[in-house]
């Protein structure tokens, strides 16, 4: 979806390097919410599209105002609500209990910790590049113009722009459909190189190259 998460090329956000920006997080709850969001997925506690497409559905004002792990908190909660694992009001009720001084309940389950470690150690590689891929290294391709309402991995700033395929990375289901539970066939995914002039026009900086991994469905011959 063409939301505020699709930030490539936007103006107005200011400096990258700020005091404190070198650390992954500042508060203890942040890595714990990271872990909870991972557990929601691995333990099957949530429903609907995964954490990432759910975060993209955040209200844009809320998305921009939220810290990174605040967005993860949002997606964990939404996924739990969708499955009915928690009900509306449950989190607020617990917030009130904690504010009133209740001791936070704990739960011990070494088996879950073990499953979590195993889950985080697992890898799910793409399928190998198919022999009949539409495009090969050196082919010129153009990114289709589109305005997908749902999750996509085709950022706005490359749409309509021509680039050159550098290699076929593998084959994978189109995320635009797969994140919603569909099972489309795997299609080639290409590493496509774009010249900065083609993406953005003239720049004060000497030209550079931007490379993206793009699914076959996003591309047409150029």
């Amino acid at each position, binding site marked *: 979806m063409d939301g505020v998460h699709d930030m490539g090329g936007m103006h107005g956000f200011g400096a990258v390097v700020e005091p404190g920006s070198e650390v992954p997080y500042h508060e203890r709850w942040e890595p714990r919410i990271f872990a909870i969001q991972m557990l929601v997925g691995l333990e099957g506690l949530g429903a609907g599209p995964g954490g990432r497409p759910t975060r993209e559905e955040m209200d844009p004002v809320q998305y921009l105002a939220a810290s990174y792990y605040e967005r993860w908190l949002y997606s964990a909660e939404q996924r739990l609500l969708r499955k009915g694992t928690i009900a509306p009001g449950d989190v607020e009720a617990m917030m009130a209990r904690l504010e009133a001084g209740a001791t936070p309940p704990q739960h011990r389950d070494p088996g879950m910790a073990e499953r979590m470690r195993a889950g985080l150690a697992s890898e799910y590689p793409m399928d190998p590049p198919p022999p009949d891929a539409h495009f090969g290294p050196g082919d010129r391709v153009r990114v289709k113009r589109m305005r997908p309402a749902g999750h996509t991995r085709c950022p706005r700033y490359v749409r309509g722009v021509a680039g050159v395929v550098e290699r076929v990375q593998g084959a994978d289901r189109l995320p635009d459909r797969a994140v919603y539970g569909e099972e489309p066939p795997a299609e080639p995914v290409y*590493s496509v190189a774009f010249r900065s002039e083609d993406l953005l026009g003239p720049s004060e900086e000497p030209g550079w190259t931007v490379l993206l991994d793009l699914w076959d469905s996003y591309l047409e011959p150029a």
Partner: protein
Amino acid sequence: MSDAHEHHHDGHHHPRPASEVELRARALEALLAERGLVSTDAIDAVVELYEHDVGPQNGAQVVAGAWVDDAYRERLLSRPNEAIAELGFGGAEGDNMVVVANTADVHNVIVCTLCSCYPWPVLGLPPSWYKSSPYRARVVAEPRAVLREFGLELRDDVEIRVWDSSGEVRYLVLPMRPAGTDGYGEDELAAIVTRNSMIGTAVPVAGEAAVA
């Protein structure tokens, strides 16, 4: 409430009132723990994993290995997942690794403009700036201005290649071995490989130890 993490929650290390979002986060954990749906020790295990075992020290070993051993470098560039696994690293967000090598004429930088995708098994969890709106917005559109903020100036004729991790591939930059490191052993080399040099916003410098 003898658990160390609860001390954190109690504000032992943060003597200030809990923010709304912190309270909400604590409440979600408490709610799921009370119902036996997530375990406190599983959460602890993940936090400890990424605070102690999985971080840029892993990537630094990979880079140092490639610097001292041409055959390993070749394997790392041609079959990255296998080469990284040789050192015992792998897992979530490292499913499809690609290693991009800097040369005298090419400098690589990684980003994820749509999200904040990052190669966890070799670099750990990303720094705040990597996830920030300005980095995601600007590094594809004005890379030299962004690198300058990090104190990195590149010659005008160096090609900058910005890798936007839009798909399932996760990238690791293989920086050039700096001059003045001829006598260094592999561990000494790993010690100068900074996280930012493996993202591409810095280059390693002899004698400048990577900050943990």
